[in-house]
């Protein structure tokens, strides 16, 4: 490991005995971090469950006002980005520097497309006065309060998800910088690996958000 000029900042750290131990620790650390993320989003899912249980009809009406086709397409975009991410990890496992870079760029682009679509949808909500607050108005029901609860949860959940995407995009940029400098080899690719774990996890959150937010009572429309 030590032969590489930059290796000392990325390779084996002094608290570890072996590279294997270091890799296992890093990967396990990322899994533990993802557990905290499960519980973090879990609080939002809890609030969502309680209010959907209390106001099923209003949640259905509010949900059908979202554009399910855009939502589904955006889900597909995110799944594609997960695919390119796993391909980047695979390239790293095989030590293919160019392939890492290509797949990371693709992942980044797909992530940005997702965020762009999300921004478009939010703007639509703004135009429709569906943003919770003083100017909130949801047509079709007198129950403005519960309708606003739905949109509060919608923005909290998609907003925090998007924030995780932005952080993920930052991590991808960091990886790209180091991949371009050839720091990742078949022996040392833990950063790519654990960034992949993070990216896929953010994808999983969306896999649940999509049906819960977009697909309630679709058949009624």
């Amino acid at each position, binding site marked *: 490991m030590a032969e590489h000029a930059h290796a000392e900042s990325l390779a084996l750290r002094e608290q570890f005995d072996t590279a294997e131990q270091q890799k296992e620790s890093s990967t396990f650390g990322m899994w533990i971090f993802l557990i905290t993320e499960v519980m973090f989003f*879990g609080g939002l899912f809890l609030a969502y469950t*309680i209010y959907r249980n209390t106001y099923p009809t209003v949640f259905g009406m509010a949900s059908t006002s979202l554009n*399910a086709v855009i939502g*589904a397409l955006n889900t597909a975009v995110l799944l594609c980005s*997960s695919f390119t991410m796993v*391909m980047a990890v695979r390239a790293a496992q*095989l030590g293919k520097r160019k392939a890492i870079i290509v797949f990371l760029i693709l992942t980044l682009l797909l992530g940005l497309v997702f965020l762009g679509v999300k921004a478009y949808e939010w703007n639509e909500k703004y135009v429709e006065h569906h943003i919770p607050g003083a100017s909130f108005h949801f047509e079709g029901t007198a129950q403005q309060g519960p309708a606003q609860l739905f949109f509060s949860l919608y923005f909290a959940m998609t907003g925090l998800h998007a924030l995780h995407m932005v952080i993920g995009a930052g991590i991808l940029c960091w990886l790209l910088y180091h991949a371009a400098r050839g720091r990742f080899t078949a022996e040392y690719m833990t950063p790519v690996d654990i960034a992949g774990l993070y990216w896929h996890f953010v994808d*999983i959150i969306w896999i*649940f958000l999509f049906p819960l937010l977009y697909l309630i009572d*679709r058949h009624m429309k």
Partner: protein
Amino acid sequence: MSEHVDSVKTYTAVWLILLVLTGVTTAVAYIDLGAFSIVVALVIAAVKMLLVALFFMHMRHSTSLTKLAAAGAFLWLFFMLAFTLADVWTRGLVGTPGR
């Protein structure tokens, strides 16, 4: 996980299944299944999650410790949901609103 390099074929297959499932869950939402639509939606989402976790996140090659940790997270999520719902669902049953 340099010990386990999965084939491009596997990844592609998983990816395509995920896309198909996204289509399915969207389509099914337009069919009136009554109370079951939420069940179907969640089952499909859970399958997608498992596919991502097992293949893309290499969980099928992971140590049992990692699997245990991930299962633990969902157990705790279940605790939180179940006990809070236990309150919400049984409020007012004794004949007094509240309590």
